[in-house]
């Protein structure tokens, strides 16, 4: 479906190396996908030390909280939509400690979306 609507994005997503963090999923059908379970914080520390380009998490609240708590995220890019809603899932839900960040960049889109970029202090 995405291949029709967003062909470039779909191509990029298909081509990229992907990792699914899961304790229940055994095997991923999507090509170039690896499943990792167990101690994902240790695994991420190991992955950060290995050679290669940067890694990105797109969404995925639960692993973001775990990696943020462990101090493993080097950059946060958050898009704020111009909409107020009364419910939903929160970012960093269940985070164990307060996280102080440094604002590095902002960008405003025509749609009214505001991009906020931060680094850990």
């Amino acid at each position, binding site marked *: 479906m995405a291949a029709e609507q967003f062909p470039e994005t779909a191509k990029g997503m298909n081509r990229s190396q992907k990792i699914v963090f899961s304790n229940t999923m055994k095997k991923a059908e999507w090509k170039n996908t690896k499943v990792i379970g167990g101690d994902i914080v240790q695994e991420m520390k190991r992955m950060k030390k290995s050679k290669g380009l940067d890694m990105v998490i797109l969404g995925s609240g639960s692993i973001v909280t775990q990696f943020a708590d462990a101090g493993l995220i080097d950059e946060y890019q958050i898009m704020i939509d*111009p909409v*107020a809603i*009364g419910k939903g899932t929160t970012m960093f839900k269940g985070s164990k400690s307060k996280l102080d*960040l*440094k604002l590095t960049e902002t960008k405003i889109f025509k749609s009214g979306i505001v991009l906020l970029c*931060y680094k850990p202090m």
Partner: protein
Amino acid sequence: MRKLIFAINITIDGYADHTSGIADDELHDFYANLLGTVDIVLFGRKTYQLIESYWSKAPSDPQATKSMIEFANKINSLPKIVFSRTLDKIPLSSEAAAMEGWKNTKQIKENMLEEVLKLKEQSGNNISVGGISIASTFMKRDLIDECWFLVQPIVLGGGRRLFSQRDGMPEKLNHYNRQLELVDTDKFKSGVVVLHYKKI
């Protein structure tokens, strides 16, 4: 018609917690300037008492900066309305009791929304509202014309949220989903980002 405006500090993850933000001179100047556009302030009971307990004493606080004192003078001098069903009498500190703006507090117990609509129809400058709970109620009733979110460079992981679901709210208000228009943005040295929206 007068505008009802709302400004609040909020963390990146959407929590409104007054104890965790960076409250420097730039932030106090922002709120003092905003209060310069209003001639009455509405409060929920908790926020009213919180603001009164500190800001009525701030002018005599040796630790207070010039910006803080300017903000204190603004908030202390404005007429106020407090919405509370539980307070019988509004308790004021001795400092606040000597200030016109605090003495000039009207308590409203019932028909909160009708009272706000009446105020909006009167002539005058903007009306400001403070307090997560009443601001959320007013927002969901489409009474807030403009709002400012001061996004603090902080992730908290828990706390009170704006516009969240509440017991006793009609279902359609708990499924609140409202598009806003981004008016402008600003940045403070502290890393606070100001997002200014208005009702579409």
